[in-house]
C-alpha cells in the first residue's frame, strides 16, 4: 500500500489550466457538419436573392417592407431587410438545429458517455456547449449580414445611409449600426438557444429537441400577435427582436433595445440553470 502511494506521490494533484481546446473542438464540430454548412448557405442565399430580385424589378416608392424600399438607396439596407425576413423563422430554425443537437445529439450517438468519462465536468460541458451556441448564433447572423452587405454594396453602392428618423448617416457610421444590429440579434438568438439547450437535455433525440425548440419559437410569435395577451408580450423572448430597427434611428432609440437585452439575459440565465439542474444529476444511459 505504501509502495502504491509512493508511486503515485510524484504525480500529485494534477494542475488544471483553463483551456479553450474543447470550445474550439466544439466549433469545429459544428462548423464541419455538412448540414450546418448547408444551413448557413440557405441563410446567406436570402439576402442575395432579395438583392437580385430588387435589382431586376425596382419597385416603385412606398412598395414592400420598409427596408426593402430603401435598398436601392444604399446597399447596407440589403442585410437589414434580409434580417427582417429571416429573424422570425430561418434564424431560429438554424438555432433550433444547433441547440437541439448540443446534448441530445451527443447522447444519441453515445459520444456523451465518452466525453463525460474523459472526464469532462458536466457543468463545464454545459458551459462550453452554450458558449458554442452563442458563437453559432453570431455565425448565423453574420451569414446573413456579410453576404447581404457585399451584394448590396456591389449592386446598389455605398451612398449615405438614410435613417428611419429621416436624417442621413455617413458610410462608416452606417456600417457601425449594422454591427450593432448583428450583435443585438445574436444576443436574442443566444437567449433562444438557452431554451433549446434545455430541451436538448431532456431527450436523446436531437431532431425531436430541434422541433420542440422550433415549436416554442412559433408559439411565441403567435402569442405575440394576439392583442388580448399584450400584458404577456414584453416577456416573450422574441418580442423585441424586430426592434433592431430602432438601432437605425438617429439618435438610436434605446428603450426597446435595452429591454430586449435584459429579457435575453434573463432567458439565458434561467434556461441555462434549468439545463444544469436537469443535466448535472441525470443518469446517462445512452
Amino acid at each position: 500500500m505504501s509502495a502504491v502511494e509512493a508511486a503515485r506521490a510524484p504525480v500529485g494533484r494534477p494542475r488544471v489550466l483553463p483551456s479553450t481546446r474543447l470550445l474550439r473542438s466544439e466549433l469545429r464540430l459544428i462548423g464541419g457538419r455538412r448540414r450546418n454548412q448547408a444551413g448557413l448557405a440557405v441563410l446567406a442565399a436570402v439576402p442575395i436573392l432579395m438583392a437580385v430580385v430588387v435589382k431586376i424589378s425596382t419597385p416603385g416608392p412606398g412598395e414592400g417592407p420598409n427596408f426593402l424600399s430603401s435598398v436601392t438607396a444604399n446597399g447596407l439596407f440589403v442585410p437589414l431587410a434580409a434580417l427582417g425576413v429571416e429573424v422570425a423563422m430561418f434564424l431560429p430554425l438554424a438555432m433550433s438545429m444547433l441547440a437541439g443537437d448540443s446534448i441530445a445529439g451527443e447522447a444519441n450517438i453515445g459520444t456523451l458517455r465518452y466525453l463525460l468519462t474523459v472526464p469532462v465536468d458536466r457543468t463545464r460541458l454545459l458551459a462550453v456547449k452554450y458558449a458554442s451556441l452563442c458563437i453559432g448564433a453570431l455565425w448565423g447572423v453574420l451569414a446573413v449580414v456579410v453576404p447581404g452587405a457585399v451584394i448590396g454594396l456591389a449592386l446598389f453602392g455605398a451612398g449615405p445611409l438614410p435613417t428611419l428618423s429621416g436624417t442621413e448617416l455617413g458610410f462608416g457610421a452606417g456600417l457601425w449600426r449594422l454591427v450593432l444590429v448583428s450583435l443585438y440579434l445574436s444576443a436574442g438568438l443566444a437567449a433562444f438557444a438557452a431554451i433549446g439547450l434545455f430541451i436538448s437535455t431532456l431527450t436523446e433525440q436531437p431532431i425531436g429537441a430541434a422541433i420542440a425548440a422550433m415549436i416554442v419559437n412559433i408559439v411565441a410569435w403567435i402569442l405575440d400577435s394576439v392583442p388580448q395577451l399584450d400584458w404577456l408580450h414584453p416577456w416573450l423572448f422574441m418580442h423585441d427582436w424586430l426592434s433592431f430597427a430602432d438601432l437605425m434611428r438617429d439618435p438610436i432609440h434605446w428603450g426597446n433595445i435595452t429591454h430586449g437585452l435584459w429579457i435575453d439575459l434573463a432567458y439565458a440565465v434561467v434556461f441555462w440553470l434549468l439545463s444544469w439542474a436537469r443535466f448535472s444529476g441525470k443518469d446517462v444511459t445512452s
Partner: protein
Amino acid sequence: MTQLAQERAGARDPAPDSGGTGAGSRDATLAVQTSGLTKRFHHQTAVDSIDLAVPRGAVYGFLGPNGSGKTTTIRMLLGLVQPTSGTRSVLGMPIPEQANEALHRVGSLVEGPAFHPYLSGRANLVRLDAADLLADPRTARTRIDAALDRVGLLAAAAKRYRAYSLGMRQRLAIAAALLQPRELLVLDEPTNGLDPQGTREVRSLIGSLASDGTTVFVSSHLLAEVEQICTHLGVMREGRLVAQGTVAEVRGAGARTLRLETPQPQAAVGVLEGLGVQEVTLRGEVVRGIPESLGGEEIVAALVQTGVGVRAFAIASPSLEDLFVSLTGEGFDVSG
C-alpha cells in the same frame, strides 16, 4: 494457462480480497471498491447491493449473462449513473465527489464504441483529447498516434469513422482509453464484434497493459474470452454478485468431485459413504462422489485396506465453465 494466471495472481496481488471490507471504509489497495451498490430503474433492480473489491494490479474478469447488471455497475463506477444506494470508490477516491480526479487515471470502454461518424478516427481522438483539461496539447499528436498504433489502426486513422468496420470501431474505442497513461482500465465487452484474430490481439494487449502494472477491469458475457488472462473473477447473476475472488478462490468455491474405477463398486460405495463422501453414485464400475475436505490419500488408503481394488482414482476441481453455468443458473441466456 489457468495455472499461469493463478501464479500471476499470487505474484502481483498485494492483498487478496478478504471479503470483509466493511461498508464505508475505503481500502487504498483496491482499485475499485463498492459497498452495497444498488441501482433500481423504476421497479426493476438492475444492480442489487454488490460489494466489489478489485485489487490494484489485478486483471479482474467481471462476468455474467447479458442483462445481469454489468454495464449498469460500470456506469455507476464511472459516474454516469447515480446509484439508488451504496457507495463506490475508484483508485481510492469516492465517486462522484472526486470523480474528476479519479477518472483522469481511468481509461474506459463502455457499452461499445461511440464516435462522431463524419469525423475521421484520428479527429475523433483529437476531440476527446481536447476535452481533457489535463492533456498537454503539445504532445497530443504523438499520444494519439501512439494510441492508434497500439491498436493497429494507424493506417486507417484518416478514414471517416462511418467507414470503419465493427472491429475497427472497437479498436478505436480502446485507443481512446489509451490516450493517457492509466492506472485503471475499465473495459466493457472489449472483444465484442472482433474476429478471433482481433480477440487474441485484444487479449494480448490487455496482458501487456497489465504487466505494466495497470489494473484492468474487464467485463464479458463469455467466460472463454477472459479466463486466460484474469487473475480475479467476479460473477454477476440477475444484479447480484454471486462469486468474487482470485481465480483459485472462485474455482475452489465449486465442489471437487471424485471419480473411482474399481472391480468392486458395491464395496467401494460402502467405504466411501463410511468416510463421509457425499452424493455417492454408481454407474457400472465407476463411482463418483463429492469428497469435500477429504484428501485423496486418505480415501485410497481406506479403500485398499478394505480390499477394494483401485484401477483409477482422481479428484478434480470443476472446470470454470461448469462452475459458471452453476453460478449463473441458466447459462448465458439473457436474464430477466
